[in-house]
């Protein structure tokens, strides 16, 4: 099931092709993922995955080491905004060989499908992943009309 969220783009043999295409896209900065108007440079902190079922949309932000209280989450219509700050304290007595971890303020804006119901949004933070679940409105079901 986990595969459905992470690998629906790269189930073999297309996985390798997709990945290559992504890498080429980075080289040419013109092809690849159909970029949303709010899309950001790849590698922006925190990485985001968005998955959907007919009943709900789940947004996963891969943001390790956050204080959940410092996360600012807002949703207006179908636009979700997540912002916050991650402090990576520096040890003044140490010398650094690598500093790859994100440090500072972050903000990501994610456009969700139009039929979400933002009033029932639920967010949880666990093992460094912020998961935001937004239910979708009841689908308009075809109604049976009886002829008298």
């Amino acid at each position, binding site marked *: 099931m986990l595969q459905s969220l992470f690998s629906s783009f790269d189930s073999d043999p297309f996985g390798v092709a997709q990945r290559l295409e992504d890498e080429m896209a980075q080289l040419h900065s013109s092809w690849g993922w159909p970029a949303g108007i709010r899309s950001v440079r790849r590698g922006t902190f925190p990485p985001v995955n*968005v998955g959907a079922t007919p009943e709900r949309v789940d947004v996963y932000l891969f943001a390790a080491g956050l204080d959940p209280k410092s996360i600012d989450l807002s949703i207006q219509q179908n636009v979700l905004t997540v912002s916050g700050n991650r402090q990576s304290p520096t040890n003044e007595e140490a010398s*650094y060989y690598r500093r790859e971890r994100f440090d500072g303020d972050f903000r990501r804006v994610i456009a969700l499908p139009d039929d979400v119901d933002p009033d029932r949004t639920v967010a949880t933070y666990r093992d460094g992943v912020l998961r935001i679940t937004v239910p979708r409105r009841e689908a308009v079901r075809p109604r049976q009309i009886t002829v008298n």
Partner: protein
Amino acid sequence: MTPTQEVTNPDKTETVQSSTREQEFLLRPATDISEDAHGITVLADMPGVSKDRLNVQVDQNQLLIEGTMAIDVPTGMEALYADVRATRYGASFQLSPELETDRIEANLVDGVLALRIPKRAEFRPHRIEVQAG
């Protein structure tokens, strides 16, 4: 702040073997590495990894960090967008002989792995007293 997994014996290498067997893309965790007088500190971002799915081991001076995300995904979920396209992290580092590899401490808090690798006592800087006279 409980230690996550013991740094296991070099002969327990099942996890290493399984990871090389699978044709799977590994995520390389963003890492900070720093050194002070007493040792080396490694911080690695591994969001989604719980401590029972983390493996830290030392094999012949090679430090191996592995973790698998455990994320609850509903049945039939389709991805609309994905920055993250793999569920396994992996990183390895060559250690140097002055490090005490059998005394590595590991902690995993909110997806951040912190490793402390102490230096052997004889390699820590010590002050040499200058005798008067």
